[in-house]
């Protein structure tokens, strides 16, 4: 682990990159903004460019250095030295350590221990910090917002900015009582972060970006895309098409269908915005409801509202996707 003084030396001629993984509404972008505001030198924060929806996995990036020219680039961040994961449910869904430098730090809001985390992400060459941010958030803030708390974890393992500087940034951004609570939560987080140091620090002078990774080799080339740019439904050309996005992980609830009560009236099928109501044609030549496609259902609950016989109910998911609350618009369209 590097001390604040050592990091200051590193930052004179190098860039430190951070990446935050969160879900839409959890404040990942706000966390990365606060890094830039708390840092004494030059910094840039970029959200993952695109439209962001509540509950969908989000990423945001931070580039910090004392050298203005080094952070002047508007390139995206490919090789983070620190990755912070605000929501443990992302661990199974996203490759959170992609590009993370050897000896870099992975900070996760989780109750798992550090060795378990190394196993989940399949990396032995990184340091791990864990913190039960959800509990601290509920205790101190009274609601499950972990974005500022995770910053406490970062200060603990890589003090690129001081607690006081972060507190100042928070006071500029949030109003009185909210700011005070967040600062208290951060102080508790610094205390409670569990550190699993493998004794290796990242080499900040090495550029670990994979050449041409921004070109996404493996997807179809210009010679292979269909005429007029059409994505034909029966082909699997667009491997990142929306049908393959696990929108099911965005929601707060599992929707449950009761076959006994269902009258096959199909009102839920009409109202579902995600085609997540599964129907099949029976031997009688009629369409019958067969269940709910949990991979795509993001629990908007329209079906529950519209069902005339209460054949659909909901159950709160285990895990923190349920903590999403609206905040500053991120991404946008």
């Amino acid at each position, binding site marked *: 682990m590097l001390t604040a003084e050592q990091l200051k030396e590193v930052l004179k001629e190098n860039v430190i990159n951070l990446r935050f993984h969160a879900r839409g509404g959890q404040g990942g972008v706000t966390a990365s903004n606060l890094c830039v505001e708390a840092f004494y030198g030059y910094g840039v924060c970029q959200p993952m*460019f695109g439209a962001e929806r509540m509950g969908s996995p989000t990423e945001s990036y931070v580039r910090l250095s004392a050298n203005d020219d080094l952070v002047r*680039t508007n390139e995206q961040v490919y090789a983070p030295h620190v990755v912070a994961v605000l929501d443990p449910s992302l661990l199974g869904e996203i490759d959170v350590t992609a590009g993370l430098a050897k000896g870099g730090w992975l900070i996760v809001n989780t109750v798992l221990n550090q060795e378990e985390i190394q196993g989940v992400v399949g990396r032995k060459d990184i340091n791990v910090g864990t913190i039960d941010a959800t509990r601290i958030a509920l205790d101190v803030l009274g609601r499950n917002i972990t974005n500022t708390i995770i910053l406490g974890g970062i200060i603990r393992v890589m003090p690129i900015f001081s607690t006081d500087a972060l507190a100042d940034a928070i006071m500029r951004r949030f109003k009185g009582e909210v700011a005070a609570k967040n600062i208290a939560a951060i102080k508790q987080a610094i205390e409670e972060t569990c550190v699993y140091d493998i004794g290796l620090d990242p080499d900040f002078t090495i550029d670990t970006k994979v050449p*041409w990774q921004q070109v996404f*080799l493996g997807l179809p*080339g210009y010679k292979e895309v269909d005429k007029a740019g059409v994505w034909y439904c029966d082909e699997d050309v667009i491997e990142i098409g929306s049908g393959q996005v696990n929108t099911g992980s965005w929601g707060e609830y599992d929707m449950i269908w009761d076959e006994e009560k269902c009258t096959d009236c199909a009102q839920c099928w009409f109202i579902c915005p995600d085609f997540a109501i599964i129907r099949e044609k029976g031997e009688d030549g009629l369409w019958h409801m067969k269940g709910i496609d949990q991979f795509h259902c993001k629990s908007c609950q329209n079906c529950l509202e519209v069902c005339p016989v209460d054949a659909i109910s909901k159950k709160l998911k285990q895990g923190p996707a349920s903590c999403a609350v609206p*905040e*500053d618009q991120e991404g*946008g369209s």
Partner: protein
Amino acid sequence: MSIEPMRIFFKEIKEPITTTMIGNYAVAGGVTQTDPDVICAFPITPQTQSVEGLSDVVHQGRLKAAFVNVESELAAISFSTAACAAGARSFTATASQGYLLMTEALPMAVGWRLPLTMMISARAFNSPNLSIWNSWEFTETNSEMGWNCIVSENVQETYDAAILSVMISEDSLFPTMFVHDGFIISHSVQKLTLIPDEAVRQMTPKKPRHTIDPSKPGTWGGIVTPSYFMEGRKNLDEAKKPVLNQMREVFSRFKKFTGREYDLIETYNLDNSSKTAFCTMGSMCGNIISWMLKNKDIGLIKIRAFRPFPHEELRKIIEEHNIEKLIILEKSDSLNGMLPPFSMSIATALYPLGTLFRSFIVGLGGRDVTRDEFDVAKKKMALVSDMNGRLYQYLGVRETKGNIYEVDY
């Protein structure tokens, strides 16, 4: 909204404040400080948060402006033009397809010599697929229709451009658009220093000008026969000639107030050993400047004033520094075998000099432009020794699943 992004602009800014902001809100702040009378824009996609930020400031009471939502970008530009003709300081904003929808009404503000300002968050238009990400739609087909156009590299510059545009518009009496790269600047949080309100007021005084005036009735935009139209156009052409000089004067006045130095064209490391320079504009300049820390044998020419295009200044720079080769990077294409629009402007300027150049089309639809592109462009340019053959190529595009077009990978 749990956070009020425009809060810093709710009160009088008394001294320079360093803060962090995304490009869109920074522009909204800059526009707020120039005290517009009318803000009119289409509020839905592809609109940006700049207008949202302005509605915040108007709603809060800090800015006494008419905030007008309209049903389309065509309506927005028409309304803004009319408001400006009536004497109001007016601002509008758009992006992508919205800009194309405006095209029909863009020439009128020019013809009427109105100091309208518009922000453009540069984004792709939709063909063949929909994209909300960065490309340079504003350069296509010379669709600026006679507007002035300045392009910004980062959040500080785009904030400053919001104020500079008002100064340029009102000095030249031509409408001015200021452009930043969509998402890359519009949504990045960067540090910037805000200018005190009093300084902005001094830089952008509301001066008397020609307006629609009931006491002096006249027909604006009435029909003319072939016996008259051409004189109107030539009159505009003459009026455009001093604009670049007026821009320069604006930049030097701005420097007196803020210390920040701008020019029509800015140059970096042009006296280099390879006598080669990149030539581009917008956010990519930042990428190149960072990359140049390790590539000191190459220079950069950054175009800030895209329209009017500073031909003579560019020629002078190239002659003074003995630049032999130019690598032009741009985020638009032409599809018709000609050079893309930005390169075409450069090529026109270079014609008398015979400087060697090649144009590289990069970063369309939000694809990141990185050190990989710069390395390859530099290597390719080193092999160029004449102006035969194709003068442009796409760079950073997949040819097949496993192959990048014209790049040995």
